[in-house]
């Protein structure tokens, strides 16, 4: 069960049971972006309020497994109040965290070291990479956030 405890760390279960930043924002002005994982049915909606280059507020709705829900809750805490540039950095770091071990499946990719201390609570999700099929659960919110920022850029 050691592996399992590594996946379902207490922080993750806590964010799953009590998700942060849950809810909606009036859109517009908020940017509303939907994410969908057709394989497991997980759905997420991300609302972003951006003011003067800062992600002033973020809210999430949707449903899915503990990993996707906890990941979105952890994400919202990690990015709220940051500048868009900082948010993009966090996204990049998180994507690296999620690909470190995937590289054992796809031998082409170079493993990248991520400094776990630098990412705070997000580090709790590091155990997910040992469960390759769950990586996409963890990534759903982040991909949706990326997409929202892209829409913002092109708006």
């Amino acid at each position, binding site marked *: 069960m050691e*592996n*399992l405890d590594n996946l*379902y760390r207490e922080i993750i279960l806590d964010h799953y049971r009590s998700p942060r930043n849950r809810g909606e924002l009036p859109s517009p002005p908020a940017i509303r972006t939907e994410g969908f994982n057709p394989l497991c049915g*997980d759905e997420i909606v991300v609302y972003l309020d951006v003011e003067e280059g800062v992600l002033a507020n973020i809210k999430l709705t949707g449903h*899915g*497994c*503990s990993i996707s829900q906890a990941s979105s809750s952890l994400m919202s805490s990690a990015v709220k109040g940051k500048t868009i540039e900082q948010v993009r950095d966090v996204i990049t770091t998180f994507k690296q965290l999620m690909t470190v071990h995937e590289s054992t499946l796809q031998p082409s990719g170079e493993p990248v070291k991520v400094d776990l201390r630098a990412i705070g609570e997000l580090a709790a999700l590091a155990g997910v990479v040992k469960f390759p099929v*769950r990586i996409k659960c963890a990534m759903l919110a982040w991909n949706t956030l990326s997409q929202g920022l892209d829409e913002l850029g092109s708006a």
Partner: protein
Amino acid sequence: MSSFDARRVRADTPALARIINGQRITYLDSGATSLPPRAVIEAMSRYYELRHANVHRSVFQTASEATATYEGARESVAHFINAPGGAGEVVFTKNTTESFNLLAKSWGEANLSEGDVVLLSEMEHHANIVPWFMLRERTGIEVRFIPVTDDFRLDLSSVDELMEDVKLVSVTAMSNVLGTINPVKELAATAHAHGALIAVDGAQSVAHDVTDVADLDIDFFAFSAHKMLGPTGIGVFWTRAEILDAMPPFLGGGGMIADVRLDGYSCAGGPTRFEAGTPPIAEAAGLGAAVRYLEGLGMANVAEHERALTGDALTRLGLEFEDRVRVIGPADTTHRGGVISLDVEGVHPHDVAQVLDQFGVCVRPGHHCAKPLMRRFSLPATVRASYGPYSLVRDTDVLIEGLRHAIEMFA
């Protein structure tokens, strides 16, 4: 139960010796794909080691043997489902899904037009939905659905209304989510009484009970070898000879033609018209062996065995978890097979399956390619456990232990 012994089946099945996370595997995913016995694996290895050759059109020894193997599998399948016209009615496809596409594109496009209705049910697998939606785009047919009742049965209360303008009824013999076994024989009589034909999805039923297409009096039947202890890469499409003979070709290429000139072509007759290109020969050898193995077990014995397992599991799940675990499907074994979908309160199916994996338990979380049915019951997904002839009560024990652990973890 005569000579049937699930422990012997288990001993015949190499994949059941696998150790997962330190524990013997508990395979409860036969609804997705089944684990082949050694006899099936060896039939294919032996084929490749001794007599691999392309079929038809050759005179050398191993080519004749390969052809006999391939055509012999057709005979075996015809016997297994009691095809009234014999082997000449059995078409080999790649899976159930291709069989339905063949039905929709060949028979459907030739026989259905705008205003005609194909009647499906809300509990169909996508394999028996999407091909009809695609046909609808091309021809303007209507696709209608038999509703499912709150107790997980087909709602046939207004069947006469449902049957209006229906040219084809296409339903599953057994739901891959609910376990519900549908009244196919009655539906066939209804369809015929309304001048319609009936196609049956046998993917879930064929490995778990006796199939007799003649007795059911149906018109089309589709299934996959990999769900009946056979290999991947081969499926079956069956229809009565007179229907088959009138069906236009589906895929074009070698083997399905009578002649090809620069200005046109003409088609071969019989099942080969629908088998363009080099067919799944080794897979037919495996399917033939699977059929022989299942006939050796006796399909009635298999059905009885799985019914007992299912009844036991339903009872114990109720006693153990009460309302924390809801069974999405009929509550007892009346017209119900060994597929048990679960909704665990407060634990997402993905997480349930993940925890169960730590116990070596293989179950499937998800929508099971039946999204309309999931919407009907407002569920994004379920965790599904499904039995096979090698399943034992011990498998249910481990399942229950794992579920207990999952519930505790997320409490």
